[in-house]
């Protein structure tokens, strides 16, 4: 069953894709790796595909074969269950890990990198000249300034809705830009007897997407990141202001939000039962799978502006990439392979095998994108600050065990907000300093 659940989980969906994804580009691909690849040519390189099913395997094979064709080094790949890999990551990395694998930027690479489990790939990122500076910056650990991941793909969290439904209530679907527009849209949707704002928080992480963006819209990117890292307080008036906006959304939500997962929200939109849904854009293929008409109806915009001072300058766009195990058998080989996944050749091989991810690299060619794909790029492009989602922007022993349940109890009892925030702050302060 856990297998089955995982298939549905956000992580698998996008990670699988990410794995496939993996590539950023450097014109000369292995120019920096030449010295190392000569050595690597002797020994096989092991690669872990993190979920993604058949497509994940297909993409990995395409990229790894291209690498073998170029360097003569054999790559041995295996696919693992994404959630299992993530939950046992420290143990796997201390055992006999594969040399390179798809992984996630933010706390998850910084933390394990600092602990000595991931190899420093700063040189590889430097060699990949097509990587935008912002992506490299985002992949840099703020503590030791090293890079433990080669950034490859990302996806936007935005406000999704159906254009036809917004037209029907008499609004322009291209112009949901301000908080007032959203409130108006939700009010009208609700009047039609539909769910105005789809929410599913059964697993406890889904609502973080709404919280992230509200806090960034109300207080700005810097405050949000400070808050998630203990440099601002949950009991501050500014944080409380964010929760005032959050409380305004609750009456518009489906009352059974504690009973459904993110895919329940997706189904609400798919079945035309809800107006707006704040979610990562990874599910668009499910619309396509239902019908082209449904897919064409789907739209995404940046979450509307609340505070003029911050506009829509921030977005949740979790960045994925390739990391190299520090204790692998062939670290140099792993680095060379990881760099190849980030190169133009790697990206093209992945896309050729059916990868639909958006790559951060400038080598990524998006000219073949459809309208929704282009809109996703526009949503990404509208922001200058990129958040990675609360469970990657904050420490692991805070996001899941403390913040998740706090948001759940807030949505159940918004009136208890002060008590909940006091508890959250107290629990943050009780965490070990390290």
């Amino acid at each position, binding site marked *: 069953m856990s297998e089955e659940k995982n298939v549905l989980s956000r992580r698998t969906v996008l990670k699988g894709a990410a794995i496939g994804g993996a590539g950023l580009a450097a014109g000369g691909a292995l120019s920096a790796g030449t010295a190392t690849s000569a050595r690597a040519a002797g020994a096989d390189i092991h690669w872990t595909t993190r979920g993604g099913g058949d497509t994940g395997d297909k993409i990995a094979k395409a990229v790894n074969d291209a690498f073998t064709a170029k360097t003569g080094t054999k790559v041995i790949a295996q696919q693992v269950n994404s959630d299992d890999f993530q939950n046992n990551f*420290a143990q796997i990395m201390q055992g006999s890990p594969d040399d390179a694998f798809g992984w996630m930027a933010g706390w998850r690479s910084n933390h394990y990198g600092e*602990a000595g489990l991931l190899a420093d790939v700063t040189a590889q990122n430097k060699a990949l000249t097509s990587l935008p500076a912002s992506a490299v910056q985002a992949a840099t650990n703020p503590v030791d300034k090293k890079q433990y991941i080669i950034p490859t793909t990302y996806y936007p969290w935005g406000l999704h809705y159906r254009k036809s439904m917004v037209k029907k209530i008499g609004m322009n679907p291209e112009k949901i830009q301000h908080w007032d527009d959203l409130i108006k849209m939700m009010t009208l949707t609700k009047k039609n007897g539909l769910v105005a704002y789809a929410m599913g928080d*059964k697993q406890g992480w889904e609502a973080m997407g709404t919280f992230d963006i509200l806090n960034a819209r109300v207080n700005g990117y810097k405050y949000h990141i400070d808050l998630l890292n203990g440099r601002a307080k949950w009991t501050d008036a500014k944080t409380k202001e964010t929760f005032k906006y959050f409380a305004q959304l609750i009456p518009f939500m489906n009352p059974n939000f*504690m*009973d459904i*997962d993110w895919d329940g929200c997706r189904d609400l939109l798919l079945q035309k039962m809800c107006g707006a849904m704040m979610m990562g854009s990874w599910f668009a293929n499910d619309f396509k799978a239902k019908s082209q008409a449904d897919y064409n109806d789907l739209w995404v915009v940046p979450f509307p502006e609340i505070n003029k001072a911050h506009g829509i300058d921030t977005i949740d766009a979790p960045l994925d990439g390739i990391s190299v195990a520090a204790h692998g058998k062939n670290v140099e080989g792993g680095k060379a392979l990881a760099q190849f996944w980030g190169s133009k050749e790697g990206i093209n091989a992945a896309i050729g095998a059916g990868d639909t991810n958006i790559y951060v690299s400038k080598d990524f060619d998006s000219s073949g994108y459809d309208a929704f794909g282009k809109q996703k790029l526009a949503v990404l492009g509208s922001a200058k600050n990129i958040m990675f989602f609360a469970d990657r922007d904050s420490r692991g022993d805070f996001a899941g065990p403390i913040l998740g*349940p706090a948001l759940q109890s807030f949505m159940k009892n918004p009136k208890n907000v002060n008590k909940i925030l006091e*508890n959250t702050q107290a*629990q943050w302060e009780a965490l070990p300093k*390290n």
Partner: protein
Amino acid sequence: MKTTVTIPKNRNRRSLSKTDRFTLTAFVGIPSLLQIILLWIPAVVTVILSFTYWNGINIKDIHWAGIQNYKNIFVNNPIFYQALKNNGIWLAFFLLVATPLGVLLAYQIDRGIKGHAFFESIYYLPVVLSLAVIGIIWNFMFQPGGFVQGIMGRDLAHALSIWGNPSINTWVILGVASWRHIGYIMLLYLSGLKSVDPALKEAAAIDGATEWEIFRKIILPTMQPVNIIILVITLIESLRAFDLVYIIYGSPTVFPLLNLLVFQNFAGQGISMKGAAYAVILLLLCIIPIITYLRVVFKEDLK
């Protein structure tokens, strides 16, 4: 009297052949060794870890935390008290409702009421399923878009909140858990009842005892060893509850239980030694009542 006791003892000891001694050592020694390696050493290590801060990666990063982990659990941590409450309700419900129902069913079936074979099979059926499978089945029934919601004509947007509704989810979960627990207890008790000498019951009935008196004064005391077993099982099943709820929710926070909190804080990304402290709390909750109870019972038996 004394001599008769000591002589056979000595004879017994002497009569142990080499093979016997080897067999005995192997049969007692190997399980004990495994028990120590697989159970007691990890348990002791967990207790030690519960007084430390550690992210589970490098041994050198472990440092002492004193009682801080426990303080973090007991202070400002509402989810712990919710979990304690849920486990408490679970235990009370099993002790007062599910287990007695299982015993009652066993007694009725043993009396050979009409259609007892039928009842026996339908109550026994859930026992062959693991709690994980039971979780999948009932989640499929009650979740939005599920079978029961469909029968009630409720689509995804209007689905009744069942698992996420704090005023009813406890009882639904307990109902589902009891579905299996009742059959399990029934089975255990039934096998015990089969060994009760029917002559005892007949004699009591001839002396004019009512059904209730027979059950209370004859069956229950004769069944003492089985009673202990089902009591201990009920206690442990209630405190260690995990799989059913984890399968239904996929997360530990909507319906927290102590074991779910151990898992969340002791594995994966959320790892901290708070998880070890939760585990120690759970261990103490499990073994203190059991040891106390067993000591009392065995003392009575020795008398």
